[in-house]
């Protein structure tokens, strides 16, 4: 008999977690909100084109204008269009959140996988190091890092003052501290996977550690990595906006949700609404990513399924 004629008794696992996920309205709503926010920021140039404005265009005769047809959310203290600045700020904040979370996930996975697979002293050293990074008072340390003069690190001045360097710098800083959760989760899963028969079989066949980690263990780590990365995006956007708010992240006039709030804080007596929008967008984004991560965790983790409880 042909082995392929044996029918599946179980639905394939992918469909199962999709079903699980669809049962969680908060997760589905979160995805919808995230997609809308990303689409809106990505379409910022189109918006500028239609309304014929730019986020940096100053109009001093039109300061603190209320919502109108040409400025749907009004204007700020220099007469710049608020909505346009919000959308461009969103591009930066979302970009940093996702790119930095991606790099942090890679770093965390490599460290967690190495620690979990090799165990022993290497594991002890790496995990102790992780504990120290977690225990650090994060923001003060980040402030020091953000204040470092790149010129003293041997980089040329033209390079250090380049426009994109503040973007690269903040992503680097955030990645340096954002990998710990992923590393811990990956290590914990690797510890149990390492003892599984299929890993032992691969070892018996003489596979190199690198091959076992990449081919046999890594695919089984997909769900913890996806979950921790999703949750990390929210945290990183919060961190970036906090640094930018303190004036250490993205530098004005380039807008980011964090530095838009810095300006608005000085103007809360004149224009409280200016302080509302950027913070609300950060809040909406972060809570959506957190709910998404939480729903994914529950959908991907069969032990937590409602049927079992």
């Amino acid at each position, binding site marked *: 008999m042909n082995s392929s004629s044996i029918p599946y008794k179980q639905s394939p696992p992918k469909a199962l977690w999709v079903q699980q996920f669809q049962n969680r309205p908060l997760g589905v709503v979160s995805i919808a909100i995230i997609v809308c926010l990303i689409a809106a920021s990505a379409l910022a140039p189109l918006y500028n084109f239609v309304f014929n404005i730019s986020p940096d265009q100053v109009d001093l005769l039109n300061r603190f204008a209320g919502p109108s047809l040409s400025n749907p959310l009004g204007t700020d203290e220099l007469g710049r269009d608020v909505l346009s600045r919000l959308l461009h700020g969103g591009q930066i904040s979302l970009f940093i959140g996702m790119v930095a979370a991606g790099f942090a996930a890679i770093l965390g996975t490599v460290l967690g996988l190495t620690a979990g697979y090799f165990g022993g002293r290497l594991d002890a050293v790496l995990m102790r190091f992780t504990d120290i990074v977690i225990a650090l008072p994060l*923001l003060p340390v980040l402030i020091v890092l953000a204040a470092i003069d790149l010129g003293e690190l041997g980089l040329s001045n033209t390079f250090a003052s380049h426009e994109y360097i503040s973007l690269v710098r903040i992503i680097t800083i955030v990645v340096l501290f954002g990998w710990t959760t992923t590393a811990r989760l990956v290590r914990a899963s690797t510890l149990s996977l390492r003892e599984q028969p299929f890993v032992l079989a691969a070892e018996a066949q003489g596979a190199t550690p690198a091959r076992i980690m990449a081919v046999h263990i890594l695919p089984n780590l997909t769900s913890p990595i996806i979950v921790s990365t999703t949750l990390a995006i929210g945290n990183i956007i*919060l961190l970036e906006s*906090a640094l930018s708010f303190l004036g250490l992240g993205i530098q004005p006039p380039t807008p980011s949700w964090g530095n838009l709030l810095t300006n608005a804080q000085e103007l809360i007596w004149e224009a409280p609404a200016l302080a509302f929008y950027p913070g609300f967008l950060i809040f909406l984004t972060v809570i959506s990513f957190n709910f998404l991560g939480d729903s994914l965790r529950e959908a991907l983790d069969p032990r937590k399924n409602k049927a079992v409880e």
Partner: protein
Amino acid sequence: MLAAMSFVIFVLIGLMPGDPIDLMISANPDVTSEDAERLRKLHGLDQPLWQRYVNWASAALSGDFGYSRIHAKPVFDVISPALQSTAILLGLSFGLSVCIGIFSGVFAAYHQNRRLDHLINFAAFAGISIPPFWLAILLIILFSVILRILPAGGMGTVEASSLWESARYFVLPIVSLTIASVGSHTRYMRAAMIDVLRQDFIRTAQAKGLSPSRVVLGHALRNAMLPVITVVALDFGALFSGALITEMIFAYPGMGKLIFDSIMGNDFNLALIALLLATAMTLLGNLLADGAYVCLDPRIRLAGGSR
């Protein structure tokens, strides 16, 4: 550990732009470049970084932490009032947050998957996701701009007429810091409680006919507290970060604001000691957690595991 941290921070601060002499030159155009060289020699700034670290560390160990450049006072005279203010802010909001977190976490776990649980869970997520500086600004808008009942920041004057007059300045910072940390405490507590409530000894206790409150408070709570203490203590660093933002917005004269101002103002001695103290406080928090863990769980002492 602290020594290693002090070296790392020393190097990082050394990498920041400008040294004290540069600042002196820009403040006073009469200083010639020969004077600058002489001053650099006098203060040992011409020596390599590691040599300066050794100089600093040996002075620090004998109790001389140097002068703060901005405040023109010994470092500790600047730090101790800031440390007090932060201790009040952190202590009160941490206590409040842990109490509320335990209560609502236990409550949510007891009513798991019912409407109340979902409501608490949603609120906890909102608390985690809200940017602390935005929350603080919203509170200022509501209570200072619209209602005009609480001050937007600062610290009361010396001749405050009553206790309430000076306490008013603490209300908004404490409330905003508490909201920022209560969400994660609630979620930890809820998760731990759900795990414990599933276990056999809880069923036994229920079967004995104990009242639900005895089961929850007497049997489940103590076991659920164990994992929570560890994560809450690890969160102490995060709480300090939150305090920094809160202090910045409310112009609250605490450690966070001091660290920020000293780093921005190139006040090396002050920044160094303040950062070290912040790190030491965080590590102390973790140590206390280990201690509390042993108190709550006698099994650890018997196992004799050394950490």
